[in-house]
């Protein structure tokens, strides 16, 4: 298990209490799960993602990640329409373990309200929350 100091938390994304992240990429937002989440889940062997065009509210379940032992839900950091999914995860779900904040991204979202991004936690706030979980 990674120590908090070993968890990789980039500055250029925003975080949710459910351990997803969102990154602004031009007109869309890239969505994934955090290094903390993948470390807790262990080996990810399957990622179930929605179809492009599907619409979700903020906080709604949009898919699952499956480890050898368990199936866990994924929740939308922001509301909007799925613009694209990371098709590489179909053959290489382990990218979520090895590169959760980069190649292991899950989908791109056309946000219905881009200001929701500003309400997500920044790195410092998310790290504070993780420290609280440890206690």
């Amino acid at each position, binding site marked *: *298990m*990674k120590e908090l100091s070993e968890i990789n938390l980039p500055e250029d994304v925003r975080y949710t209490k459910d351990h997803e992240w969102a990154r602004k990429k031009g007109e869309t937002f890239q969505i994934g799960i955090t290094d903390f989440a993948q470390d*807790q889940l*262990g*080996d990810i*062997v*399957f990622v*179930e993602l929605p179809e492009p065009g599907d619409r979700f509210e903020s906080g709604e379940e949009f898919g*699952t990640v*499956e*480890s*050898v*032992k*368990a*199936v866990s*839900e994924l929740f939308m950091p922001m509301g909007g329409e799925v613009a694209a999914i990371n098709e590489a995860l179909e053959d290489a779900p382990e990218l979520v373990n090895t590169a959760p904040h980069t190649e292991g991204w899950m989908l791109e979202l056309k946000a219905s309200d881009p200001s929701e991004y500003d309400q997500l936690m920044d790195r410092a706030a998310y790290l504070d929350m993780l420290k609280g979980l440890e206690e």
Partner: protein
Amino acid sequence: MAPLTTPLHSWHTQHGAHMALFGGYDMPLWYGSAKDEHLAVLTHAGIFDTSHMAAVLVDGPAAEDLLQFCFTNDLAACLGPDKAPLRPGRAVYGAFLTAEGHVLDDAIVFMLAAEAYLVVVNAGMGQRVAAHLDRHREQHDVQVHDLSGQFGKMDVQGPMAAHVMRDVLADPDAVFEAMPYFAFKGGIGGTMPACGHVRTRDGTPLLLSRTGYTGEFGFEIFTSADTIVGVWETIMAAGAHYGALPCGLAARDSLRAGAVLPLSHQDIGDWPFCNHPWPFALPYKFGTGDFSKTFLGDTALKTDRAPHTYPFIGENLRKVTPPAEVRDTTGRVIGDVLTCVTDMAIGWHEDRVLSIGSPDAPQGFTPGGLCCGFVRVANPLPLDSRLLLKDQRRGIDVRIVADIRPDRTARKPLPMMLQPKEA
């Protein structure tokens, strides 16, 4: 209540284990990767801390009578195809039942000597099983001692396990002679009866048993609580030469499910211990439905109303999460899911399941992993029945099977496992 820990707890945390509560103990779930650990047991070896398990010593002139009444297997008729009596140096699997035929716990009974048996049960169950045996002791001359906390236990499982132990043991050739499946030698040490001597090269006494709970070739190793850390480190160091990995409970769970072995209090529990894939745990007379002895709970097993338990395999690695219901092809709910995990060492190849350990697997066969486990249904089902397992999120198609992971090595003769591996 603070979680219990094994003597190896700080080793686990220092080696980056993900810890979780199991049976009241804070135990490693996995170290680096549960998948790699599962696969290591099929290809090399895996080393498990199983010191959370409990044991009860039953000794005295009436020890056999007490176990014959409380344990499901028939100690007078359990060894080999001829059903020979249990003898010192041999162990047998079974369960302790209530009068209702429900499972108090499953166990392996090791016969240490005439009138002395080591009864190994699950984590946290030592006191309950000891109390249960004590209650049925009546006036008979037999003592029951809960050994919880007095011993350490680790399992070395996988095709390289004998190579690892050869490097660890003093006089390995003598120890390995005549060591079939479910045989054991040595003892835990102290004043407890032993079956000859098994020692490490530094002289630490061990009880070494050809058992385990992965379905693969290997050993369970018992030693005293104050020597287990040293034995673990010695075996880990030897194992490193053979590709062995420390393994957590996640790999143990997926390995045992693929090997069609039940998890106590999950796949067996508060319902009659019958109509399941473990008839060898019951004292059936060969080829009949009759029992060769009477025992606590036996009449309750003759009911027509007990549910039926079957192993299943899915189409791919995707799982449901219990609580989940079992539906037949018409959509009718017929039961529930007991265990559902992914065995990452197996996959469909044409119309059959192969494992990475299958000798006839085609060159470059890389299994994608398959969902597997046990379902409990109201009425009997034929083999190959198609079912839908449904949790709150999804449904998956599975089929009833006789076996899950093929080509397991648990029963392979030990000398065969010491032959040099082909390049």
